[in-house]
């Protein structure tokens, strides 16, 4: 079923991932045209202060479904905060976030079913096995059934570890399971906070492939990362954050910056020749 964001009215009703959607997900589907549809995420002068330290300062942009957006920036430049805000875990101090037309802090309930978030901490329970953890979340998201759990485990190559307790897994594999948890219900908005950190090369490719599949099926992936080298190859669009401000927006336009010119220039250059 084509996951299409209807462009009319403020409240864009999202089509719900139906029960049997899991299987046909990989079958090629038309790429929703990014221009006319209502943006999946709209940030307007988003500011977030922890105590008095501004983590994010009036970030505003619009992101459409069907693309991978890389978020780059130094440590403490507000990347994770931006991700948590989009996931509805934090409440913005000023400005507002709209995910698929729903105002996030208040109407988060409607949108939570369509958001997948995998952060730094592993949101799993060590004493349970992988199978139990994932089936619990499958039940939570309402797309119950062993089918989905096996499918997502298989996709990330974790099928044979299903019976192991999370405690016995290595950090990298735990992170994979966490990503499986986030993508279990086929979310329209996938938020990944440095997913490739602890992974070996094989696992990295699996995750990148999974991100590409999700992008092809029309969902938006916000990917926070450090390796700017891989960004050019994978991301359709880049957001550069420096000290809480959005430096580079849209494909390559530069706002005001004192971000080290070299990295930015090389990055934009790569973006230019790739899209040209």
């Amino acid at each position, binding site marked *: 079923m084509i996951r299409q964001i209807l462009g009319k009215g403020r409240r864009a009703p999202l089509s719900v991932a139906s029960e049997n959607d899991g299987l046909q997900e990989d079958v090629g589907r038309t790429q929703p045209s990014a221009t006319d549809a209502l943006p999946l995420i709209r940030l307007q002068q988003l500011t977030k202060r922890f105590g008095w330290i501004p983590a994010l300062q009036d970030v505003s942009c619009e992101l459409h479904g069907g693309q991978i957006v890389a978020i780059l920036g130094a440590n403490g430049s507000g990347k994770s905060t931006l991700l948590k805000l989009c996931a509805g*875990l934090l409440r913005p101090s000023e400005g507002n976030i709209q995910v698929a037309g729903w105002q996030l802090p208040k109407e988060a309930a409607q949108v939570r079913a369509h*958001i997948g978030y995998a952060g730094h*901490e592993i949101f799993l329970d060590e004493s349970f096995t992988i199978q139990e953890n994932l089936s619990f979340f499958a039940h939570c998201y*309402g797309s119950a059934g062993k089918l989905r759990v096996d499918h997502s485990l298989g996709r990330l190559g974790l099928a044979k570890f299903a019976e192991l307790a999370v405690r016995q897994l290595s950090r990298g594999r735990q992170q994979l399971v966490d990503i499986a948890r986030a993508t279990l219900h086929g979310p329209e908005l996938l938020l990944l906070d440095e997913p490739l950190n602890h992974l070996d090369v094989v696992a990295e490719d699996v995750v990148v492939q999974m991100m590409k599949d999700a992008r092809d099926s029309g969902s938006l992936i916000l990917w926070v990362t450090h390796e700017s080298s891989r960004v050019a190859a994978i991301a359709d669009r880049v957001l550069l954050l420096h000290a809480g401000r959005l430096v580079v927006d849209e494909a390559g336009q530069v706002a005001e910056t004192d971000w080290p010119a070299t990295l930015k220039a090389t990055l934009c250059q790569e973006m230019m020749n790739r899209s040209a």
Partner: protein
Amino acid sequence: MKITFVQAVMLILRRDLIFDIRNRQRLWIIFLFAILNTFVFSFALELQHILRREVVVGVFWTTILFASLLGFERQGSEGSRQRMSQAIKLAPLPRLAIFYGQLLANWLITLCLLLFTVLLQSGLFNARLWHMDFWLASLLGSLGLVTIGTTLTTMFSHISVRVGVMSVLLIPLILPILLTCVRFTLATQSELPVRNEWVALLVLQDIILLILTSWLYPHLIDE
């Protein structure tokens, strides 16, 4: 299709119970403490000499209060439970479903604790605690205790707090319920006519508490 409210509550309830059964430390702490507390009181008050049923009632409720207090303190500070509460917040479950799920889980454990302590203490002090109204009082009293306990546990699972803060916070809130329970069970013990105004008072408190905590719970969870 979203899961219904009751399904969500059952889900959280099953999850919490399995979690507690899986790592049994919390249960061990609660039940062992109940036994220890009983012995401390029996030695301290020389219970076998004074055949006073009132004292036994007092000892019973103190044991219940402190044993479940230790359970809540432990639950509040468990690392894995804190991470899980974050994950559950992400899922599209209605906020109150999470609260009632944890509430029911804690309530079941407290009821087991009640049963265990009644058997233990009526045996040791051969006081006849098996009074019908006694069970009513314990049921309602433990509901109130658990409501406040779960609220504070949720609060503490978001912040890592040193030991002891939970008891300082929980006991003042529990005093009215404890007062009513002790007086109600006193009436059952000393063949005085059991006035049903005590039951009404307990029910009233439980209802007010449930309404209050249900209204305050979303503020606890969401930023």
